[in-house]
């Protein structure tokens, strides 16, 4: 038996255009919200490992009401324990606050394994998994690219990859794996409609980080386009003399 908590973050669709208005990303302009891509691989592994060993999955998200969707999507694949943490000013929570809120929910779920993404598609930090592991006194295997069973994973190394085992409690952060992501069937979608989501407070300390603002990335000056392969010698010359990268 294994109890796994999986952390699912809701993020803008990776195709979405990000617009900054008055120093802040304009969320109202984002039409489509999805589960952060790596989290989906973490979730798939959690389903497989609990199916193989018995036990259950608790899906946890931290976010506003619209984030219920990532939990409903999990419910459509059979997860019944669904927790959303709600904290005012959730957008400006610093790393310490996010980690402590999520770690509290993991503890309440009684999970011995936590599966999450290598990094979220919005904040791109990669802090949450290792940070939660520290709070829980757990090991953390990061950037896992395959998994065999609860406690057995593949991770990259400088010279290739290695199979590792880890004892519980542990946090595992997933990158993309080879496993096909399953899609819900009609029965699952019906079940998800009735799913109960437990909403809990984050109960975090004050932030230690001041948010100054968002901006659009600096635009590169427009490059030049050359027609046909005859231009290759000219481009190579520019790479050497103008860009000085060859």
């Amino acid at each position, binding site marked *: 038996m294994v109890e796994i908590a999986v952390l699912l973050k809701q993020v803008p669709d990776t195709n979405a255009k990000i617009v900054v208005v008055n120093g802040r990303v304009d969320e109202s302009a984002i039409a489509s919200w999805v589960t952060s891509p790596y989290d989906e691989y973490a979730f798939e592994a959690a389903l497989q490992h609990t199916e193989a060993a018995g036990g259950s999955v608790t899906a946890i998200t931290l976010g506003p009401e619209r984030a219920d969707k990532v939990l409903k999507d999990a419910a459509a694949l059979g997860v019944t324990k669904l927790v959303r943490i709600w904290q005012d000013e959730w957008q400006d929570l610093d790393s310490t606050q996010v980690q402590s809120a999520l770690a509290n929910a993991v503890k309440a779920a009684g999970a011995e394994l936590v599966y999450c993404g290598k990094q979220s598609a919005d904040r*791109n930090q990669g*802090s949450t998994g*290792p940070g939660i592991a520290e709070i829980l006194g757990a090991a953390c295997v990061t950037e896992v*690219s395959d998994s065999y069973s609860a406690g057995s994973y593949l991770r990259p190394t400088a010279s290739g*990859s*290695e199979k590792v085992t880890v004892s519980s409690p542990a946090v595992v952060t997933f990158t993309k794996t080879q496993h096909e992501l399953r899609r819900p069937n009609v029965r699952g979608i019906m079940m998800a409609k009735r799913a109960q989501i437990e909403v809990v407070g984050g109960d975090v300390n004050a932030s230690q*980080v001041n948010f100054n603002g968002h901006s659009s990335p600096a635009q590169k000056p427009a490059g030049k386009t050359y027609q046909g392969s005859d231009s290759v010698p000219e481009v190579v010359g520019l790479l050497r003399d103008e860009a000085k990268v*060859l």
Partner: protein
Amino acid sequence: MDITIIAETQGDNLHPVTSQLVGAATSLGASPTVLCAGGAGADAAAGIAGVGKVLSVVGDCFSTFDGGAWATALDAAAGAGVIIGAASAQGRDVVARIAARRGIPVVQDVVAISQGLTMTHPIYSGKAMQEVTVGGDCAVTLRSNTFPPAGDGGSAESATVQQSGDVKIAVQEAIAKASARLDVSDADIIISGGRGMGNPDNFEHLYALSEKLGAAVGASRAAVDTWDEIPHSMQVGQTGKTVNPSLYIAVGISGAIQHLAGMRTSKYIVAINKDPEAPIFKVADYGIVSTWEEALPILGDEIAKIL
């Protein structure tokens, strides 16, 4: 300001990004202490200009990578203040854990830093930037190839301390890479192929070119998903690797937003694509509208001429 740098290592050697970490620290007026996990790269670190002190942190826990164990040992050796590491897989893991141990915030993948500490880091895979200020102690990782490196000619004093940490991750089996080719994360020049390469055998043209250039070969997700011969470790983009080389050459890649997410901050981008409307040309410094079949042989010859 007291700054402790977690040296980035590559096996027993120092990774060049460490000089960039020192460069950023000295730009803040600090004379940083550099911690070398397991003592790796300590001599080289002492030779970086501006380093105040080098501390080799040695112990059994450094024989394999376990972020928890490494953070325990390095945290015990590091002073108070600001912790700086590299925004690599290991760097992010260790630095985040040290921050959590200390109850201080961590800001990863910083691309600009100034007194205060005010920091900028990309969000939404580079589609926007976020600026924050942290008044007290904090932990930070810096994006590679973004900060000017400190020079050499330093002669910092070195010391060794013994520390320990509980290793909880056991390595069962090491799997060597199919080839000893350079990884995209470590390369200063990258040539990537996309679905436009037609079939995986055609990547041989890219490998041949990469050998001439000392470059790594990357791929788009379409290439990785379509062909078993192209492993996911080569994938650049949103669900692959984020790279920041001096030169990125995209061959037969359309330039989907998820691909751009992984490479748009490359210093120079060259695109070879037969479709003049391909979005990759919007980010390319030098775009070549041509099939790769025509362009690559000439590129190979021209490079051979100048190298």
